[in-house]
């Protein structure tokens, strides 16, 4: 594979940029693999990449029912941050952020990671104190975090509604190292890097059945034939329950909900940061893409669904939330909105764990946070599959935590998946 570097870009300039290799091969499925990862999204591809790179594993396949980049990798708001507080979550997301910081070099693919700061507004003394507690805990763990008073906030982001907002803005909790990355680049970069280490990426390869013995999986029936596997990893967030039941494993602490995102026409540079707020029933996050579009999102559609399309009341809610905080957006036109199906788990935290079957491993339950998590998700899931035991940072991210009463409930919202936004 041709590496991306200045010389190769220059050289290909003489041939009209037509002599680049394919970014990844399109192989025929083999009869058997040592490791099969089901799900060619960011998490599945990252897992395959780190299995090959960190653990020197060979004979790996990633099965994708559609095409690379067509699922939730292309249905998110591209925010990367690590402002988590609970043990396990904190270390995990901080590790993920560190991987993002070097990802473009690691993958030899520009993921356009932009550490433009994540600015989380607060609107009451109580919310400020809550933010101070969370961000102080982050600092004690060595993650950057700061509180901005109103003056600093106004200086940095002059366009917010400081005049007559229903819930006046008091300041913000800020993580400067957080920001955005380009979603397509991340998933293509992982696909290309995994492929160059010998991973077979099988697109249009939907798993239609799971053949198992008493306590392990023998083979997977797919739309491209039956494929045997020594180890299988599920990384299909959104449809985890469907696959889990295909394997005859019953219920999971997961509900599938859909989350919408919106993108507007491109405008000149307006917003240099990721701005987030949640108050009075509104929940809103916005940033400006490198193309100039405003990219934003809000709450779930509030009912369980596997449909990849959003409902209209949430379009209105999000537009209202935008207007409440940035009235200057009033005349901007919305270009597109879309919905992704996501695993909402019972405590708002993810699963990277072993399963009742000896050669099946589970990666699921990413709630709102799958995009930023993907490098660390792949890192620790690969570690679990290779070493047969969970790393200490994900040792409680298993299916048994509910029975043990050690739920990792970052919001304290209780066992109602739709509330873990």
């Amino acid at each position, binding site marked *: 594979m041709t590496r991306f570097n200045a010389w190769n870009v220059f050289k290909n300039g003489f041939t009209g940029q037509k002599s680049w290799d394919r970014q990844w091969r399109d192989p025929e499925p083999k009869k058997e693999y040592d490791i099969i990862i089901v799900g060619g999204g960011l998490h599945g591809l990252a897992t395959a990449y780190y299995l090959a790179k960190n653990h020197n594993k060979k004979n790996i396949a990633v099965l994708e029912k559609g095409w690379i980049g067509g699922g939730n990798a292309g249905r998110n708001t591209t925010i990367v941050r690590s402002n988590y507080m609970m043990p396990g979550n904190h270390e995990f997301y901080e590790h993920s952020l560190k991987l993002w910081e070097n990802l473009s070099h690691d993958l030899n693919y520009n993921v356009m990671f932009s550490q433009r700061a994540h600015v989380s507004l607060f609107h009451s003394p109580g919310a400020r104190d809550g933010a101070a507690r969370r961000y102080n805990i982050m600092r004690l763990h060595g993650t950057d975090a700061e509180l901005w008073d109103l003056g600093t906030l106004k200086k940095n982001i002059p366009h917010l509604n400081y005049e007559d907002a229903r819930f006046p803005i008091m300041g913000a909790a800020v993580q400067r190292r957080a920001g955005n990355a380009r979603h397509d680049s991340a998933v293509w970069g992982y696909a290309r890097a995994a492929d160059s280490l010998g991973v077979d990426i099988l697109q249009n390869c939907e798993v239609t059945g799971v053949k198992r013995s008493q306590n392990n999986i023998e083979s997977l029936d797919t739309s491209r034939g039956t494929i045997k596997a020594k180890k299988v990893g599920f990384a299909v967030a959104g*449809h985890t*329950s*469907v696959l889990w*039941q295909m394997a005859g494993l*019953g*219920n*999971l*602490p*997961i*509900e*599938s909900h859909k989350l919408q995102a919106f993108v507007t026409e491109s405008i000149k540079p307006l917003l240099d940061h990721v701005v987030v707020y949640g108050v009075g029933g509104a929940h809103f996050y916005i940033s400006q893409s490198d193309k100039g579009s405003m990219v934003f999102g809000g709450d779930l559609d*509030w*009912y*369980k*669904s*596997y*449909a990849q399309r959003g*409902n*209209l*009341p949430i379009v209105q809610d999000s537009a209202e939330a935008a207007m409440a905080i940035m009235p200057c957006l009033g005349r901007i036109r919305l270009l597109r909105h879309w919905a992704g199906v996501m695993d909402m788990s*019972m405590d708002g935290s993810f699963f990277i764990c072993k399963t009742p079957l000896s050669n099946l491993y589970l990666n699921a339950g990413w709630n709102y946070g799958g995009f930023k998590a993907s490098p660390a998700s792949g890192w620790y899931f690969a570690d679990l599959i290779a070493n047969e035991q969970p790393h200490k940072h994900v040792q409680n991210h298993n299916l048994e935590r*509910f*029975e043990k009463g050690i739920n990792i409930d970052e919001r304290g919202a209780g*066992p*109602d*998946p*739709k509330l873990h936004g």
Partner: protein
Amino acid sequence: MIRIKCPYCGERDHSEFTYGGDASIKYPALDAPESEWTKAIFFRENIRGMQKETWHHTNGCRLWLEVERSTITHEIKSVKACHPQIENITKNKS
């Protein structure tokens, strides 16, 4: 917008309602083993297809409804009041 035919109020937008969740869950006896309670509280079938679920008519009659709805197409097959006594009242009304 999903339209839900409330047996008491008639057909209304889903934005008047609050989504409850899986209506097929049966809570075990109070002294049942913890594993059964864990299953009832935390584990879900998460059906891809027609499922029974509860909706609360929060901005209407405040009845809890049992709705059969497809989680793929959002098509609604049936709506009834969750509590049998109330169901009888709504029947008498119509």
